[in-house]
């Protein structure tokens, strides 16, 4: 029965990789977290590194990531996932280490840890899920909420003068010498999922080189927090999120030298 009805390259859904525990996701209908978890764990399976991976879960909607990802994991305090991941990688350099955080966790309360982890060039993969809102606490304004965006704590829309601007932390981090591979992806279309899969693969491969931090932002949605249907939220990503957070590579290793270089237009 090992016969694919569709081209394996086009597969975006695989029922149950061994790297997931099989526990049903608690995420809201249409939320991107489930897809991102699955893609990440499919890559771990495909690379055959399940026994070597140690993950760090955040505080936020994905606080229970370790219920789903069938690898050794630690649950970090809010904002501190990259500090926890730093220490794990330092004491166990032979393991693959990743952290998984949302926008409030990584780009607000954890900004110092985020910047210094990348600045030290810790050899870890940092996954940054940006849905421009605090989902778990009920839809408050995030550091990446867009100007004019209505949230529970910006009910009249985010106003730059009094609430600050959405932070493009991925572009900011790419400037640091410790950043080896920096890219922004999404999971709102099958094509985007395929590109993210490739990016996660690259990031784990690069971790073997000990050349620095791999940082992958995933632009995602929050139908509940955005108060939209899943389909509307996909549309909203295209129309509002992507102009502010354009997809693609930001910093990549030069194919000839292996040194990280900024991608043009970034």
């Amino acid at each position, binding site marked *: 029965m090992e016969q694919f009805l569709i081209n394996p390259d086009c597969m975006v859904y695989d029922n149950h990789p061994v790297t997931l525990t099989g526990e049903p996701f608690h995420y809201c209908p249409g939320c991107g977290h489930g897809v991102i978890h699955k893609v990440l764990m499919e890559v771990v399976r495909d690379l055959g590194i399940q026994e070597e991976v140690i993950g760090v879960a955040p505080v936020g909607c994905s606080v229970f990531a370790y219920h789903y990802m069938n690898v050794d994991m*630690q649950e970090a305090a809010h904002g501190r996932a990259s500090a926890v991941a730093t220490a794990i990688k330092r004491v166990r350099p032979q393991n693959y280490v990743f952290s998984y955080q949302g926008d409030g966790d990584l780009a607000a309360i954890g900004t110092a840890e985020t910047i210094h982890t990348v600045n030290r060039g810790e050899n870890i993969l940092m996954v940054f899920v940006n849905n421009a809102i605090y989902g778990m606490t009920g839809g408050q304004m995030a550091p990446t909420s867009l100007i004019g965006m209505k949230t529970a704590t910006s009910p009249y829309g985010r106003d730059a003068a009094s609430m600050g601007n959405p932070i493009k932390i991925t572009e900011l981090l790419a400037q640091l010498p410790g950043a080896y591979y920096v890219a922004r992806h999404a999971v709102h279309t099958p094509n985007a999922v395929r590109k993210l899969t490739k990016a996660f693969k690259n990031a784990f491969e690069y971790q073997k080189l000990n050349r620095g931090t791999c940082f992958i932002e995933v632009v995602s949605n929050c139908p509940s927090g955005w108060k939209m249907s899943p389909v509307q939220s996909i549309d909203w990503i295209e129309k509002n999120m992507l102009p502010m957070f354009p997809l693609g590579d930001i910093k990549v290793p030069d194919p000839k030298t292996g040194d990280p270089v900024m991608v043009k237009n970034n």
Partner: protein
Amino acid sequence: MEKQELKGKEIKLMKGNEALAEAAIRAGLDAYFGYPITPQSEVMEYLTENIPLRRGLVLQAESEVASINMVYGAAGAGARVMTSSSSPGMSLMQEGISYIASAQLPCLLVNVMRGGPGLGTIQPSQGDYFQAVKGGGHGDYKLFTLAPSTVQEMVDFVFEGFKMAEKYRVPAMLLADGALGQMMEKVELPAEGQFPHVIPDWATTGKKEGRKQNVITSLFIQPEKMEQINLDLQAKYKAMEIEVKSESINTEDADLILVAFGLVARICMKAAELAREKGIKVGVIRPITLFPFPTEVLNTTADRVKKFLVVEMNAGQMVEDVRLSINGKADVQFYGRMGGMIPNPEEILTKLESMMK
């Protein structure tokens, strides 16, 4: 860098902070994470100079907040790990310590206390007694707390701290003060490599085929489960009571007992000597473990002795535990200096004399 051979037993004249750092290396420290703060910066300075030539790793973090979360990560991955700081820095670490206690991770925390509150002063203090022995961060938890009074104990209690932390899966606290950190005394250093550490089977080391995933967490969202975790922690703290340690000096014939911990206990020993020269029979009880607290020895001593004087470098913190231990059996008074001031034996003697009138 070429690695040095393991050090043998040695006798040296050392500063408290440096002796503590040397002891940590000899105790098989795998990792140290810290952030500079006076009066304990020599700990990380010593480690960054010596660890590259010996064994282990040391990382200067961007803050105490990052340091303590690195301690969490390394301990969760099975390493023998420590951090050190001084009062304001320890305050910053409290959230992380609460997580470490809840996740039941062994580690050694060192607080070389300075005067507060606020930015305070860099001079010695015992103002963080409550923070150390009552938990410090949110929730019901305890630290196994050791109070050294000599530079030798700065060495010995590093070993003892790791031992207790690993035996009970709790964070251990070495509660010193700025004077102990800065002063020099003769110390005997144990040989290196005599204190083996095995990576525990609960640590996150990569999920090997055939075993379930290991998870380090402090999140137990169902109240029934969270209550059970609390009950387990309390049972463990109760079990730790057998490890209680204190020192009693000349208490057999005493009419008055001085109670003090750390450096102040040594000052009290001198004050007791001066008092005896004047015919006042004074003994000293020095709690060595502050948690578990030597309740029993204080309570039984109060069956016979009816006057106690607690001396601390704070506004009166341990005195509350002494009163709870004695439970009304005797008169318990307090004498304290604050803000970085160290009491001298003569002023303690004056207070003793006033109590015997």
